[in-house]
């Protein structure tokens, strides 16, 4: 077991594309770290550099305290689970699991022990004599996991391993991967573009954008205190409501004048939909601000629904979470309020979080 340490890692592809722009990251022993970001932000590139499948333009990568920049993938003591599983189609499941071990000249009784153990953990023992072509997507996924487990590596690397599964299976496998990792305690680096998957899996979440780290921290930290506008809108669904403050914005809002006065032009405020409420007969409380919206649509997602509306002359889109189902016709005027403490403030230009007290 070992941690993974990235120092100033950069990757410039042959065509001149700078896919990773100086990433430093410390993955502690036994932690489950998830790299999340939109497609094309360099997640796979970063993971593949750790695996040794892609050369490192500059910077260093260490696994278990040992610099691995120059080592072959097989020498790095890592195992990787690929998006398309990459099982050897002509080998039985058992042979697939054994292959890496045989190549490493591990004694055959030890191989058998590990394969049987992994098969038991993953409940794929009945499938051992089948070929990958005879398995369902979820079963292939398990076999791919099995191939990583039997290696007993210092670290697992996952590149969007669940994105080929249907929604239900994805949720199930997500939970299984999580509990498996807890049980084995193997350091894991996991790449996904799905923020929900990232939130539920990670000990530590690393949000990437355009080749650099936007923010790293525990999922709750990142959700509650997003460091940039990018993170604020990327993490959470529906995305955080953003309202850029323009000279006339404050006068269009209702509610606490202290709060309204604190909104300075050139900043953007963010409010999560679940921190907003529709204002009824009870009116606005002292520490709240409120906005008048024109409804554009309602979305029912089960126990709650989201009411979407636009605000003011700037037509800012605002989503409000309401319990149960409320129906509004399009164009209905409504008033939504949010408490002062739930406001996030960002600099509109730099996108950075402003932590000055309200």
């Amino acid at each position, binding site marked *: 077991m070992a941690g993974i340490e990235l120092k100033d890692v950069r990757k410039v592809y042959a065509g001149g594309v700078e896919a990773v722009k100086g990433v430093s990251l410390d993955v502690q022993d036994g932690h489950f770290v998830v790299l999340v970001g939109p497609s094309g932000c360099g997640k796979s590139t970063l993971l593949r550099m750790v*695996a*040794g499948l892609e050369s490192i333009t500059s910077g260093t990568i260490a696994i278990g305290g040992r610099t691995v920049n120059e080592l072959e993938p*097989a020498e790095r003591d*890592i195992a*990787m689970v690929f998006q*398309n599983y*990459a099982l050897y189609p*002509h080998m039985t499941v058992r042979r697939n699991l054994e292959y890496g071990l045989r190549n490493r000249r591990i004694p055959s009784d030890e191989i058998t022990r590990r394969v049987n153990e992994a098969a038991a953990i993953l409940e794929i023992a009945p499938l051992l004599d089948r070929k990958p*072509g005879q398995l369902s997507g979820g079963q292939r996924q398990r076999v791919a996991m099995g191939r990583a487990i039997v290696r007993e590596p210092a670290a697992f690397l996952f590149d969007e391993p669940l994105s080929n599964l249907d929604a239900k299976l994805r949720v199930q496998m997500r939970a299984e991967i999580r509990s498996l990792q807890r049980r084995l305690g193997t350091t894991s680096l996991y790449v996904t573009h799905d923020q929900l998957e990232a939130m539920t899996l990670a000990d530590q979440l690393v949000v990437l954008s355009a080749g650099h780290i936007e923010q790293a921290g525990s999922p709750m930290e990142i959700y509650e205190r997003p460091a940039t506008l990018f993170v604020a809108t990327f993490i959470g669904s529906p995305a955080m409501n953003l309202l850029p403050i323009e000279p006339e914005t404050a006068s269009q809002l209702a509610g606490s004048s202290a709060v309204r006065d604190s909104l300075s032009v050139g900043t953007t405020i963010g409010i999560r939909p679940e921190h907003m409420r529709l204002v009824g007969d009870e009116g606005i409380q002292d520490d709240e601000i409120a906005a008048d919206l024109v409804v554009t649509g309602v979305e029912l997602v089960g126990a709650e629904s989201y009411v979407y509306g636009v605000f003011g002359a700037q037509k800012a889109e605002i989503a409000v979470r309401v319990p149960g189902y409320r129906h509004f016709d399009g164009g209905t005027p409504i008033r939504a309020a949010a408490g002062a403490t739930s406001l996030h403030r960002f600099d509109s230009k730099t996108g950075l979080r402003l932590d000055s007290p309200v």
Partner: protein
Amino acid sequence: MIERSPLGRPLAHLLLIVGILIVAFPIYYTFTASTQTIQTILRPPLPLTPGSEFANNYGEALFGGIGRIGGVGVGTLLFNTTVMALGVACGKIAISILSAFAIVFFRFPLRMVFFWLIFITLMLPVEVRILPTYKVMVDLGLIDTYAGLILPLIASATATLLFRQFFMTIPGELVEAARIDAAGPMRFFRDILLPLSKTNIAALFVILFIYGWTQYLWPLLVTNNNQMNTIVIALKKMVSFADADTPWHLVMVTAILAIVPPVLVVVLMQRWFVRGLVETEK
């Protein structure tokens, strides 16, 4: 895709049957002729039913030796041709799969130059380079040897391109998984690439075996000794301008025997052949 009108089926069958008759009749007629005495053959019309000389003719051709080609038996001819066809087929496959492996999976300087060099040889079949090739064979002392028959034919751009196309469809993740699984290049080739290519290899083998079996120009040049003749060349040599000099019954036997091995190869490997052309195990 398949038409299921009530008339379609019988019509399709009829067409197929007519086609088969057109293809099969000459072969049947040759077989009939191969079971007649030479006198019957020379006195038309040739009967449409097999004669009584089957055992005699085939025995004479296989074990007796045929005068016009220096007393060599068809057995020897079959052996020579089999060696050549197998050598050409296996040699072509071995060389082309290795060169495709190098071109697709390795990054070496001038890789594309080599690729285009191979590609250009498509324009240089034996017929075009026959003089220099012959000279080289003479200088190497390979006239009248199996090596001389086989070697000049085994470089194959077509097969290389075919394997290249196939290799390029192998997902990069599979190659990477193998790298992580500590499989070096040759182990990857042996454990993963070869098994995945086996249907392609089988299909190619059938095509190349027949290519080797039916070679005419090159064996004609490179073999002088009757003992080294291939069956196609011997067949040609057996036929004289004068009908009276030609042992027609033996020619017919040889012709039939010359068809049998390629047919066997096609029939035995049919399943593989079709699979190799239409699908891949991925």
